[in-house]
């Protein structure tokens, strides 16, 4: 049958849509505009009947429309652009999930990456990885790393001597370089790398060293674990690392070790520790944590007993502890180590009974005790900790050995010497940023300029790049093929999610060229490593490789890295005597300066990441800055203080000439005469986000004193520096939002948390409500439980929420105005039995929309923009909101956030200029946005939705599966909220509270449960589980532990600047 292909007939009614009147009038732009709109039709204007008709039709339709004149009001013409050829696996509108892992010197973090139509949007932990035990979880750096990929300030081009070049030219240059150095066996060539436990990189290193034996290989991490590694080498032999097994330890002592913090700890350690903190029924056993530190860390917040001493005295503390334990055990090794170290003669005194009782508790738990020393501490402390662990029978029980993933390399000091001796003619700096973060005494900037050829591979054009001959854009880990070892030694994959956005090179690409291979285009380098590591790769390579990529790790490859630990008694003596010092306050009147990793920027590398910049530091709640942390007593001594959103600036100068200025931040629980300052701020060449933030502490840091310095020269400058702090209040104003007790209280009175504060006065019948509320008739009822006992305060949930829900950053100025947009915050409270106690406790409480059943916000909304859903959500319809902000004012939990500006459309530096600035977000930032969540605009209220997009996705998936049936109930625990998924500790559990088998229902059954501000009768859907502490009753000060049991009864005692305050208000 013959078919006649008809041209589309005239549209009915003459209603057609045109973009503008120019087209209609046939102005000179007409043809061009038409060209854009009808690519085929435009060419037909040359002549012929069809094109004339076409023209007449356009004119006719346009004329018909002219009378109405609404063309400008109509929606713009939008296009649907399908692929030309189908792409494998891609379904438009559906997420695709890939396993990968994030490189980290402390072990790769196993991940699952969500990609949407080819762009990665969200990072989650890989729940199937052995360290994750069925529930994923990440740290906040992994959560925020997706933003680094899309950083609009990323280096976009190859630069040769600051002029634009390209990849082909660089490759040509590289080939010439390789040819030249191959002839010289690599003499004069040096590589400066970051620490990276990647087997492929190690393999390439061996190849390079084979071909170019004279080349220098140097590894530098400003916040590395050199001291730990040295001690491990002395104590256990070369190539052996300790791997603490925190889930096996009943008693843990942390010596200046922030093993629960994201900057020093690992997911494995955090998970292991909190696993022993789950306590469902009275009488359950819980581990006990002792912490000795100079400033509050999240680890200190979790402590059952915390000793506040200057960081430089931790060595003396360890020595005293060692002598107690060696006396009791008679352990020869420990006696030997402690006697040798004791000769340094450093002394300090600690609260009476602390060391003795701690030693007794450790001894009583032999084989179940664990001592950890922080990477900041000198080698001597690490050796003492290892020897104590050995004496306590911890080796093989609570700590095991693991083969080091990398071979030792030269240090930056060695490289410095070689460059000074003019032995280096070409220097490759892959990652890192030595001009900014190398020890000050090396004067790296000047040094680097003395090398004829410096090739820098970096993600941002930074301090180091600006002093390099070549700058090469570096690929982000979501852009290249790689591999690594996670903290437990398991072999993990790094898969690219997207082609390098700016043609970046990975470290392996550069090294492959030196190894005589072509620049890899696919996974061939990693496949080669996999072939060597996997036992199954020989039989059926494709199957083994695909399984590896699917799982994200090679099952069983971790135990292969295990190594027995034996403390080598003979090897230690001489070395310790010579090298292992124990730092101590070197004289009277000295202040100790302690350099710490920064919560926001780590060592400076995340400086241009807005999410991390704006994530409040868990302890100080500081954003966008670092500050000099000092104790209230030291503040008085120096005559400095904090103001609303500001702090006095002090000047710290060292004898060696280093000098910095920093605003002070008075920190409760800080050691006296000790100043903590974090590294990673004050960058001079960085992106738009990081520019002008904080002060640089690296000038104080030298290779001989990388973690502590001592000085008498600390003085107030009389000036003030602005500080954006999100929580000014330290106390609860007597309302008992956060509740804690001891294990003993819990045993005697399991429901103690339900009757604290005002809740003790509640009548059994409950409060009546004067409002009527919609019926909760949904099949599922959503609720949450938050276990304060396993929440370490790491902030991963905050960043996860921001990534999932497209929350904008607002900038320092707006944070000072209290306009931060996080839907979720971690309230931090300090508690002490007496108001002026310098040793307060610290607790965290994640606070988000409580999804009140009797929601105060709903009753005051004049336009019904916030209403209740039948499944118990307090929903927010953005497009209805007119921005009265009544709801936020009526919210007792203060969890609603208002878009005062168009944060997603305007640059945060020019918010007040409104329409005078350019509009629109950079394309790459748009690429990160979650397509399932509305990007809010100015004038709209927003708040936690319980991840309603995930609920609806799950509901839709269930209904799609149900099809022509009535099985429409969402399966139990089939999805998670973003905060729950990010929490490594399962402290946040979300789900259907009507389903008895759901995780959340089980957790909500705990006797520790209570609801915040219960007496207001808001009936929140979030149940908090009270915090428990497990004090040792014989420790000095044990009776004061769990101070919140009595906190709300405390009278205002301390007067500061005439203001009566509860607790601390410096």
């Amino acid at each position, binding site marked *: 049958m013959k078919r006649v292909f008809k*041209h589309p007939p005239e549209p009915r009614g003459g209603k057609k849509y045109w973009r503008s009147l120019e087209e209609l009038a046939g102005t000179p732009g007409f043809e061009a505009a038409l060209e854009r709109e*009808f690519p*085929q039709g435009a060419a037909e204007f040359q002549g012929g009947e069809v094109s004339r008709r076409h023209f007449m039709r356009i004119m006719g339709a346009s004329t018909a429309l002219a009378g*109405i004149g609404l063309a400008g009001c109509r929606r713009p013409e939008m296009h649907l652009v399908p692929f030309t050829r189908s792409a494998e696996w891609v379904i438009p509108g559906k997420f695709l999930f890939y396993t990968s892992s994030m490189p980290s010197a402390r072990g790769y973090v196993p991940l699952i990456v969500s990609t949407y139509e080819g762009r990665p949007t969200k990072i989650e932990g890989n729940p199937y990885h052995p360290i994750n035990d069925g529930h994923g979880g990440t740290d906040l750096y992994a959560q925020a790393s997706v933003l680094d990929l899309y950083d609009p300030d990323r280096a976009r081009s190859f630069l040769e001597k600051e002029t634009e070049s390209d990849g082909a030219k660089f490759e040509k240059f590289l080939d010439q370089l390789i040819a030249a150095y191959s002839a010289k066996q690599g003499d004069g060539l040096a590589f400066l790398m970051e620490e990276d436990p990647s087997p492929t990189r190690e393999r390439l290193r061996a190849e390079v060293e084979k071909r170019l034996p004279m080349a220098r290989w140097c590894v530098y991490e400003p916040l590395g674990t050199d001291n730990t590694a040295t001690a491990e080498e002395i104590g256990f032999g070369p190539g052996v690392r300790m791997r603490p097994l925190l889930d096996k330890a009943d008693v843990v002592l942390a010596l200046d070790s922030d093993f629960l913090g994201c900057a020093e700890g690992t997911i494995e350690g955090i998970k292991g520790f909190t696993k022993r903190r789950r306590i469902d029924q009275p009488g359950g056993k819980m581990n006990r944590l002792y912490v000795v530190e100079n400033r509050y860390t999240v680890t200190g917040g979790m402590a059952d007993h915390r000793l506040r001493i200057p960081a430089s005295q931790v060595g003396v503390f360890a020595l005293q502890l060692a002598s107690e334990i060696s006396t009791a055990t008679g352990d020869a090794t420990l006696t030997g180590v402690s006697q040798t170290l004791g000769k340094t003669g450093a002394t300090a005194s600690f609260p009476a009974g602390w060391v003795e009782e701690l030693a007794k508790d450790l001894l009583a738990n032999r084989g179940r005790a664990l001592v950890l020393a922080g990477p900041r501490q000198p080698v001597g402390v690490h050796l003492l900790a290892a020897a104590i662990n050995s004496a306590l029978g911890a080796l093989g029980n609570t700590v095991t050995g693991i083969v080091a993933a990398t071979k030792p390399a030269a240090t930056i000091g060695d490289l410095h010497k070689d460059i000074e001796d003019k032995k280096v003619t070409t220097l490759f700096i892959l990652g890192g940023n030595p001009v900014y973060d190398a020890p000050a005494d090396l004067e790296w900037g000047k040094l680097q300029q003395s090398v004829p050829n410096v090739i820098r591979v970096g993600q941002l054009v930074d301090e180091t790049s600006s002093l390099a001959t070549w700058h090469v854009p570096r690929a982000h880990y979501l852009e290249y093929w790689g591999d690594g070892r996670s903290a437990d030694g398991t072999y993990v994959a790094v898969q690219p999610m997207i082609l390098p956005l700016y043609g970046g090179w990975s470290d392996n690409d550069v090294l492959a060229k030196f190894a005589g291979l072509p620049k890899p285009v696919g996974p061939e380098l990693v496949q080669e490593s996999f072939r060597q590591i996997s036992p199954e790769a020989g039989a059926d390579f494709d199957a083994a490789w695909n399984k590896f990529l699917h799982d994200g790790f090679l099952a069983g490859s971790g135990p292969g890295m295990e190594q027995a630990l034996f403390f080598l008694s003979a090897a230690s003596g001489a070395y310790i005597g010579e090298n292992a010092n124990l730092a101590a306050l070197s004289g009277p009147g000295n202040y100790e300066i302690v350099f710490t990793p920064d919560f926001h920027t780590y060592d400076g590398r995340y400086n241009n990441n807005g999410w991390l910049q704006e994530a409040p530091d868990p302890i100080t709640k500081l954003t966008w800055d670092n500050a000099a942390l000092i104790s209230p007593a030291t503040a008085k001594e120096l005559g400095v203080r904090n103001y609303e959103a500001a702090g006095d600036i002090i000047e710290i100068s060292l004898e060696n000439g280093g000098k910095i200025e920093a605003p002070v931040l008075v920190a409760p629980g800080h050691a006296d005469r000790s100043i903590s300052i974090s590294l990673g701020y004050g960058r001079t060449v960085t992106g738009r986000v990081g520019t002008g933030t904080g002060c640089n502490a690296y000038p104080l840091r030298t290779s001989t004193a990388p973690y502590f310095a001592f000085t008498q020269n600390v003085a107030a400058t009389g000036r003030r520096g602005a500080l954006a702090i999100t929580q000014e209040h330290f106390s609860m104003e007597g309302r008992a939002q956060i509740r804690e007790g001891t294990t003993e209280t819990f045993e005697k009175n399991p429901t103690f948390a339900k009757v604290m504060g005002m809740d003790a006065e509640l009548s059994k019948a409950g409060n009546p409500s004067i409002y009527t509320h919609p019926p909760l008739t949904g099949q599922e009822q959503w609720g949450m439980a938050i276990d304060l006992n396993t929440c370490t305060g790491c902030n991963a949930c905050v960043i996860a929420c921001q990534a999932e829900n497209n929350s904008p950053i607002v900038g320092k100025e707006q944070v000072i105005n209290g306009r931060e947009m996080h839907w979720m915050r971690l309230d931090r409270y300090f508690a002490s039995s007496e108001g002026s106690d310098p040793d307060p406790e610290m607790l965290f409480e994640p606070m988000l929309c409580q999804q009140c059943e009797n929601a105060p916000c709903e009753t005051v909304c004049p336009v019904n923009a916030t209403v209740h859903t039948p499944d118990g959500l307090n929903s927010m319809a953005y497009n209805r909101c007119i921005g009265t902000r009544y709801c936020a004012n009526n919210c007792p939990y203060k969890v609603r956030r208002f878009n005062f500006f168009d944060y997603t459309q305007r640059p945060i530096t020019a918010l007040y200029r409104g329409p005078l600035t350019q509009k629109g977000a950079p394309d790459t930032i748009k690429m990160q946005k979650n397509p399932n969540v509305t990007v809010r605009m100015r004038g709209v209220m927003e708040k936690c939705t319980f991840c309603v997009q995930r609920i609806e996705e799950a509901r839709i998936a269930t209904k799609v599966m149900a099809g022509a049936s009535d099985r429409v109930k969402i399966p139990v625990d089939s999805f998670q909220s973003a905060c729950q998924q990010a929490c490594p500790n399962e402290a946040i559990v979300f789900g259907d509270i009507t389903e008895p088998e759901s995780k959340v229902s089980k957790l909500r059954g705990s006797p520790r449960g209570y609801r915040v501000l219960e007496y207001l009768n808001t009936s929140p859907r979030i149940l908090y589980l009270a915090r428990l502490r497990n004090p040792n009753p014989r420790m000095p000060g044990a009776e004061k532990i769990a101070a919140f049991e009595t906190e709300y009864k405390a009278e205002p005692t301390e007067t500061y600047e005439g203001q009566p305050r509860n607790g601390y208000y410096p």
Partner: protein
Amino acid sequence: MANFFPRWANWIPLKIVVILGVMGTAAIAGVWYYFTPKYTRVGYQPVQPVPFSHEIHAGELGMDCRYCHSFVEVSYHSNVPNTQVCMNCHSQIQKDNPKLAAVRTSWATGQPVTWIQIHKTPDYAYYNHSVHVNRGISCVSCHGQVNHMSVVYHDQPLSMSWCLDCHRHPENALRPREDVYNLDWKPEDENAKSFVAKYGKPPGEEDRDFSRDDVKLTQLEIGNTLKHDWYVNPPENCAGCHR
């Protein structure tokens, strides 16, 4: 003292009031009618880069909607076919037709065909195709009888109240799943006997005899039966569509 204003000036205030009233009414009525999706969207019929006729493909040839819109049952988005799908047939059939020049160019160059979007929900409304088609809502309910359109136009207003009409009374649109893609389906075509055997009797009509061949079912009877049998309960709260 002489009158400043002539006598006819006394009528001016009244005239102003009347004229303003008429103009105001006209403005309100104009906005009421012309600014609604019913006017601004229905009938929108842009000229597509390829003169593709649904009438020929879906109507005369009887191709299933899902041949081209292949992910409608799994994704929120009902995809537009990529060039490869067109070329599956048109590499052999009508392979020299000038109307398909754009498709062939796309296939040769790898540059996709830029179709003009006709149906669009606002960015803050999250419509999901898969849940509708899997639960007995036909394409025709929102898109009209596309199989009779040689050039696709906007058939329904897709306004929020229009959505809610159906979410409140899904029985007006529900049909057996096997007829979701049958755009010519009519309730009276449904065989009452087999329908009742499969899904049960319509609620409230348990006593009626459906075994006779001349019994015709109405849309409401079919809709109510399916709504009950499948537990169809479309969301009516904000969070169902706005996130």
